[in-house]
């Protein structure tokens, strides 16, 4: 296993400890519940925005905690939603008079854990609401299933809601805002390799040397199909078309464009994809107002990338431009 790991069972708490040590003034870390929160939260004058999900998607989700972003987040084991207790304690520790908004990526495990935790918290009189993020267009939505998956679009929901919460928006306003962002953001990804969860010690799926998984999930779940690896531009075109046609986006739209690395793909390749995606957006008559190239929602060391488009309006543009700070920094 080509990984920096000590005891695989301790992988998650160990990297969370690193995050805390690297941000002593900003964050508190509670190992018992694998919970990271802002030192200055909760603040009764504003809603607490929290999340909790499986690990392996870093910087999502615990590394997205900070001013203008999340107030706190708890993590489960790699790819496993957090235990019910961790979700409950997260709500409890971040309970604010203004309320708590839980941003849940749409997976059954996360939903069941948060549903249970929210019931327990409400029973204690805590004001809390949930929102389910589901931006992945890879698998067609269906009434009879759990619905679409939540992937990299998650970043935009957090950024917008976090910025609005900082400005003092109410719980209901934030819920409406989360829905607005989610309704206007779409993503699809592709994997060139499978990742290896430390505790599993083996790949989740097998890909041939010349194969890719189109529409892969961020936990290595299958996507639309297995195919031969194509030139970067052809791959970008397929992601772009799938995403652009879903809402659909229209000529004249002002958009934010994201190329998200899945963990093992270097920045240089992501910019090759961005160059094509940007050109396609301009051809389609979209105005790229903001762009994001890097790692936002990963799948451990999986080689691959996802493309996300968010339709903007003046409110969203202002919220995306608002100052924010998270555990991961450049300078």
């Amino acid at each position: 296993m080509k990984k920096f790991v000590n005891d695989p069972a301790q992988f998650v708490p160990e990297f969370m400890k690193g995050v805390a040590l690297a941000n002593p003034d900003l964050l508190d870390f509670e190992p018992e519940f694998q919970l990271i929160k802002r030192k200055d939260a909760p603040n009764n004058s504003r809603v607490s925005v929290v999340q909790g999900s499986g690990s392996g998607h870093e910087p999502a989700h615990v590394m997205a905690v900070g001013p203008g972003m999340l107030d706190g987040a708890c993590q489960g084991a790699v790819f496993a939603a957090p235990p019910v207790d961790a979700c409950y304690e997260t709500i409890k520790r971040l309970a604010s008079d203004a309320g708590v908004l839980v941003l849940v990526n749409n997976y059954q495990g996360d939903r069941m854990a948060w549903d249970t935790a929210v019931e327990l918290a409400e029973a204690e009189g805590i004001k809390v609401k949930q929102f389910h993020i589901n931006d992945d267009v890879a698998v067609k939505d269906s009434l009879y299933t759990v619905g679409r998956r939540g992937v990299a679009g998650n970043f935009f929901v957090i950024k917008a809601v976090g910025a609005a919460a900082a400005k003092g928006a109410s719980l209901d306003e934030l819920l409406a805002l989360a829905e607005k962002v989610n309704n206007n953001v779409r993503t699809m990804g592709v994997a060139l390799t499978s990742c290896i969860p430390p505790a599993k010690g083996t790949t989740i799926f097998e890909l041939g040397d010349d194969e890719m998984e189109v529409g892969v999930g961020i936990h290595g779940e299958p996507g639309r199909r297995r195919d031969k690896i194509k030139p970067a531009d052809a791959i970008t075109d397929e992601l772009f078309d799938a995403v652009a046609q879903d809402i659909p986006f229209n000529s004249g739209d002002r958009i934010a464009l994201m190329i998200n690395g899945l963990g093992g793909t270097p920045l240089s390749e992501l910019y090759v994809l961005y160059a094509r995606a940007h050109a396609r957006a301009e051809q389609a008559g979209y105005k790229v107002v903001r762009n994001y190239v890097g790692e936002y929602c990963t799948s451990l060391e999986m080689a691959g990338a996802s493309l996300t488009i968010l339709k903007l309006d003046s409110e969203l543009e202002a919220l995306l431009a608002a100052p924010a700070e998270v555990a991961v920094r450049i300078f």
Partner: protein
Amino acid sequence: MSDISQAQIERAIQTTAATVLKNEHYFSDLDGLAGDGDFGTSLATGFRVIQNDWETIDKADIGTMLLKLSMMVSKHVGGSSGPIWGTGFMRAAMVSKGKTSVTLDELAAMLGAAIEGIQARGGAQLGDKTLLDALIPVHETLTRDAAGGAADLGATLKDAADAADTAIDATRGLEARRGRASQVGERSANTPDPGIVAIAVILQDWCTEYGVARTPKAPELTRETA
């Protein structure tokens, strides 16, 4: 047929823990086919705690013990398995409060309560390709046997194991409609559901533990016991 003692239930739980730990990687590999490959690890995390803390668990009565198990699962098990197994233990605990032995009827009622709880929690129905597709048929055999169907507990165990075993092949071709696997559309068809397999493997090991002879059918079981 004689009642089922708390000791027998405790032995079944310890057997289950051993089965889950022994199959950790196998269950995760099965989950990798249409899911995210963590099922075995999530379950093992919980049952490892149960095994390690076994002596200290309050076993005043069956209900108390199951409630403690439910709390341990809620504290340590993540993924869908946490809420599902935690709810299951919790609901079974509620209908066995104060009891130190149960009739087969009461055992069936415990499983029935667990099934209802899991359905309420996750919204899955029979045929959605989740472990409920194993638990519901098993529940039927228990009720039938309780109504005089089975000669002894061994025969009941065998009927239950048969039902779970059958569920593996009966659901293999289906597309999942609940759980992560339901989010991959037709890509979930023709892969066994790890939760169903886990129930069948556990019941098969119960048979072995209680000396009940039974030849498994589904390839996942023959591979496993091989």
